[in-house]
């Protein structure tokens, strides 16, 4: 170090302070890890196409992108966002994406913005292979048919080719083509809980005081809370999926009381936070997403995705087309959707514990033991390995919750956007601030 005058040092330190302040102002965002793809020789028009996808971290998977590029010959640019960012961009920045991969519950907000164009079902080859609940609202007469909230079927169809209105009955125009979905429930650490968890009500059990957690996303967290409150008989709802102001007031009061009693350890907002809470043992029982449970398990920690007697909270995500798509790009997007329903993707997602939109086609790409394990709920005939090479279940183990029918059929409510959404967010803030 050379000679520093005192004044120089003073100036530098002040500047350093100001610089640090300035860098602090940049809010951290998600961490999309999508490296750019390699160069490619263009031989025909569709190879010039690059489709820009936006979606949440659980759907933007590099392996799927690579395989799609290989099979279809055009390029994909994926962006992994948080649930909230995803909806924000879908609604406010239509020029930023070609394909929107979002959740059904966001549709009551996204569709009226007019940023999605209806999908022409006649162009979707395997549409009839999609699970009937998405297409017709029927599923073998099981409870899911009467499920509350923003069930996919309720927002699956539009009334016309350039309509922004949902149709209660099937039409030729779809909002989204389902991509992945699941039946969410409570996850717990069997080693720290010590007994099976069979009811949503356990989340408020004093036994687990200071060791539980729920989601800090109002539209999802409120549904979990409603399941718990109903299960404990604390209150009833006319329709959990569309609460009245009075009902929201009441459920928030219940939540506040639980918070004041110290029932919760923390709230989580992103996938990795929930994994962290669970694997560190800070939380032993919490509402979780299924891949989070898988992530905890793959760290060698036991974690059970509890089948609960009241049923599951469903969520579903699908692929929609931006209104800006036209010509070759639009054709490419349809090609992608058809490719997605062809089965390879379904099998890939299936191995992570999600369900495919068209299980029949996915079956072709899965081994018998994989199919039996993931869809039939049978004990694994051999070790079950996820797409990234990690062993998820040893031979002889069954997946939590049983077969596809048992799990999907018992969804009783869905993530919801209610008419009183604004009020809900306001009250939710009140709960967090309490």
């Amino acid at each position, binding site marked *: *170090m050379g000679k*520093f005058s*005192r004044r120089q*040092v*003073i100036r530098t*330190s*002040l500047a*350093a*302070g100001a610089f*640090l*302040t300035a860098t*602090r102002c940049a*809010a*951290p965002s998600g*961490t999309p890890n999508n490296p750019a793809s390699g160069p490619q020789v263009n031989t025909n028009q569709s190879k010039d196409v690059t489709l820009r996808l936006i979606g949440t971290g659980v759907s933007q998977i590099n392996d799927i992108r690579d395989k799609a590029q290989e099979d279809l010959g055009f390029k994909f640019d994926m962006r992994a966002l948080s649930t*909230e960012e995803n*909806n*924000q961009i879908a*609604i*406010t920045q239509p020029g930023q994406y070609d394909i929107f991969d979002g959740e059904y519950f966001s549709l*009551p*907000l*996204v569709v*009226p*913005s007019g940023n999605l164009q209806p999908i022409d079902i006649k162009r979707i080859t395997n549409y009839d292979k999609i699970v009937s609940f998405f297409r017709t609202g029927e599923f073998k007469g099981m409870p899911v048919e009467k499920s509350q909230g923003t069930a996919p079927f309720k927002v699956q169809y539009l009334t016309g080719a350039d309509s922004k209105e949902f149709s209660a009955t099937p039409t030729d125009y779809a909002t989204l083509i389902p991509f992945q979905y699941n039946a969410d429930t409570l996850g717990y650490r069997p080693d720290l809980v010590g007994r099976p968890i069979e009811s949503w009500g356990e989340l408020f059990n004093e036994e687990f005081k*200071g060791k539980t*957690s729920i989601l*800090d*996303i*109002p539209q999802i967290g409120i549904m979990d809370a409603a399941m718990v409150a109903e299960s404990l008989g604390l209150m009833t709802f006319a329709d959990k999926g569309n609460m009245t102001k009075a009902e929201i007031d009441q459920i928030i009061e219940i939540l506040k009381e639980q*918070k004041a009693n110290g029932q*919760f*350890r*923390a*709230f*989580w*907002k992103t996938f990795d*936070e929930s994994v*962290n809470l669970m694997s*560190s*043992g*800070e939380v032993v029982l919490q509402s979780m997403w299924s891949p989070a449970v898988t992530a905890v398990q793959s760290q060698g920690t036991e974690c059970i995705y509890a089948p609960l007697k009241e049923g599951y909270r469903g969520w579903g995500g699908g692929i929609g087309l931006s209104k800006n798509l036209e010509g070759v790009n639009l054709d490419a997007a349809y090609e992608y959707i058809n490719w997605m329903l062809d089965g390879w993707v379904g099998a890939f997602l299936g191995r992570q514990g999600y369900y495919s939109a068209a299980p029949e086609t996915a079956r072709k790409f899965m081994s018998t033991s994989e199919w039996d394990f993931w869809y039939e709920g049978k004990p694994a005939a051999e070790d079950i390995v996820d797409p990234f090479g990690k062993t998820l279940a040893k031979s002889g183990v069954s997946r939590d919750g049983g077969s596809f029918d048992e799990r999907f059929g018992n969804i009783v409510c869905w993530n919801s*956007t209610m008419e009183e*959404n*604004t009020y809900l*967010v*306001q009250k*939710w*803030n*009140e709960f*967090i*601030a*309490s």
Partner: protein
Amino acid sequence: MSETWKTLKPYALITPQTLVFLLFLVFPILMIGVVSFWEFNGYSMTPAFTLANYQGILTDVTFKTYLNTFKFLGMVWLATLLIGYPVAYFLAFHVPKLEWQILLFLVCTIPFWTSNIIRMISWVPLLGREGLVNQMFMGVGLIQQPMEFLLYSDFAVVLGMVHLYIIFMIAPIFNSLMRIERSLVTAAEDLGASGLQVFREVILPLSAPGIAIGSIFIVTLVMGEFVTVRLMGGGQSASVGKLIQTQIGSLQYPLAAANAIVLLAVTMLIIISILRVLDIRKEL
């Protein structure tokens, strides 16, 4: 001609800076102000003039959230001052060589080198229920049950912010301490002042502007803070920044804008009152 140019020159010189300033600072803030009067539904905003957004935030909750934010501010300010001042004092008066002063000052910036993700993950093994601190205390038999308040609590939020922002207190105080003429101290000592008297009568008043600048940094940083509050508070603690973030996440931009304007006004008030008490101009 040259006379006119002479008059115009300063204006020409400040024009680029002024434009940038207007375009990227004043204009966005004005837009936020405008939007705060708009109407909105779940997915869109419509230009209008309504006071509903402001009425909507004038509630108990907002009030409580502000109180909570002030609480954080007070605690973080006090902690950073009490820790930062001695550190800066030590750097300025007890480290003899300039090279060492610079090196040690850089060491103080280390907490800044980690990203939020790293911080979020690394506090758990330290402060968690089975973390190092709890294990240590339980190991030596001081406590029987792990202390839960260490993580996901107001304590953790304050700890996280102090860890993160203390440099903003150290830097300006260090700066003003360095500018104190050493002969003043010698003179005071010659006149028979004790160490404490030298500090109280000479050093403290002369370093007050540094404290003021540091306080302004802390006020602006803590008042808008939402990441640390969420990560360290486990989502259970509220701050105004977090309130705004939740509203933005739910696409309630006008509400968030109204909140932001109120927050801006409150923060400005605090800063103005700091400036009323202490004149920092001679520092710049």
